[in-house]
């Protein structure tokens, strides 16, 4: 069934991302960075992505904050004559802000992938490769599961616990990769025989630019950049 997808104008999305990242890079005031991140969290909450984002952010940046603190507050000051104005909190906050902006810029809803990527200028083979890559992980997970099942049926292990899966990892990788390459050949042959690669792509969904959202985003990012530059 065809859908009408409203999206932010791609060039405005790019400019807003650059302004956002530029603002983060030029400011060193942690209060501004905290305020900026809170704003990004509001957007994530509206998009109902806040929980996953927070888990990912804490997992990735939590260790960085701790290690920056240990390095710059305990290890390096031992050195004679060491001086540094690097703040672990500000550095981490800056990284979190940049990553969240990149995430918000690139993240697309799964059912909107083809039309939105196409509207970003991806065509033909490039669009095909990106689309296929996005779904390939699910394909490989299914394949790895089949290999595990086959090994279990042969009596190599008795349960599918986390530890068992880790122990079985080296035995999974080789058949997984070999199977992947073989299926790549099979797919390639099938496409070639059916002339699928030469057929034009058709999209049922249509995209329209939400100019209100786009203008608002541009305005907010411009104001953010100006605020960062002036403080």
């Amino acid at each position: 069934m065809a859908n009408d997808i409203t999206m932010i104008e791609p060039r405005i999305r790019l400019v807003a991302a650059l302004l956002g990242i530029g603002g983060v890079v030029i400011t060193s005031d942690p209060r501004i960075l905290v305020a900026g991140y809170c704003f990004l969290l509001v957007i994530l909450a509206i998009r109902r992505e806040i929980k996953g984002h927070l888990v990912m952010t804490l997992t990735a940046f939590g260790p960085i904050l701790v290690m920056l603190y240990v390095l710059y507050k305990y290890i390096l000051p031992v050195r004679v004559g060491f001086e540094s104005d690097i703040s672990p909190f500000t550095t981490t906050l800056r990284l979190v802000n940049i990553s969240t902006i990149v995430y918000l810029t690139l993240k697309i809803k799964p059912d909107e992938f083809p039309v939105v990527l196409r509207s970003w200028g991806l065509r033909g083979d490039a669009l095909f490769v990106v689309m296929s890559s996005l779904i390939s992980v699910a394909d490989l997970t299914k394949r790895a599961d089949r290999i595990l099942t086959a090994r279990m049926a042969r009596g190599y292990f008795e349960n599918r616990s986390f530890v068992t899966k880790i122990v079985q990892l080296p035995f999974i990788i080789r058949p997984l990769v070999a199977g992947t390459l073989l299926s790549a050949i099979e797919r390639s042959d099938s496409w070639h025989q059916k002339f699928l690669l030469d057929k034009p792509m058709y999209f049922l969904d249509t995209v329209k630019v939400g100019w209100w959202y786009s203008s608002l985003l541009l305005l907010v990012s411009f104001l953010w950049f100006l605020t960062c530059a002036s403080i």
Partner: protein
Amino acid sequence: MDPKKRGLLLATIPLATGLNIAIGAVVYALKLPLYVDAVGTILTTVLLGWVAGAVVGVLGFAITSLTLNPLAIYFSGTQAAIAIFVWFMNKKGFFKPGYKIIVTGVGLGIVAAVVSAPVIVGLFQGVTGTGATFIVGYLASTGKTILQSVLLAGIGIEPVDKTLQCLLALWIIRSLPKGVLSRFNGSESSPESNG
């Protein structure tokens, strides 16, 4: 481009990208002192050339940074460098069993460390949240600059990881039937045919 070759490229790149993401995800979840996130890049480079390998590496890291590890995207350049280096070594006949693959792995580790170091220093102030940070801290406390410390720590750790990945890729390639290998573009210089 030859339609068969094009079809093979279009079928292999997404699957190799998925492979990079999947193996990298497992290792990232286990917090192992290794990365093992370039097996797909190395395989694709050996089989289809450096451009395909670089596409696999960069695309894989872009997707990883959206779904799993937001830091991955900053190291996309390293993946491109890996593809170029592996392609070069394969052309020179250094993707073969024995000491040659070790030389390739160690060289690849040094290349990866050198390319990653400016990103780690410039963006992360020397810290990436892995165990390597403690080595960086130790080296920095002995009077070395952060860049020198990151570089030396990388050169100490990366060759092990990259040699492991090269060995894994070689092991997989050698286990493939010759008929499968011959379908890929780089098969003239692949380890099976020239070794």
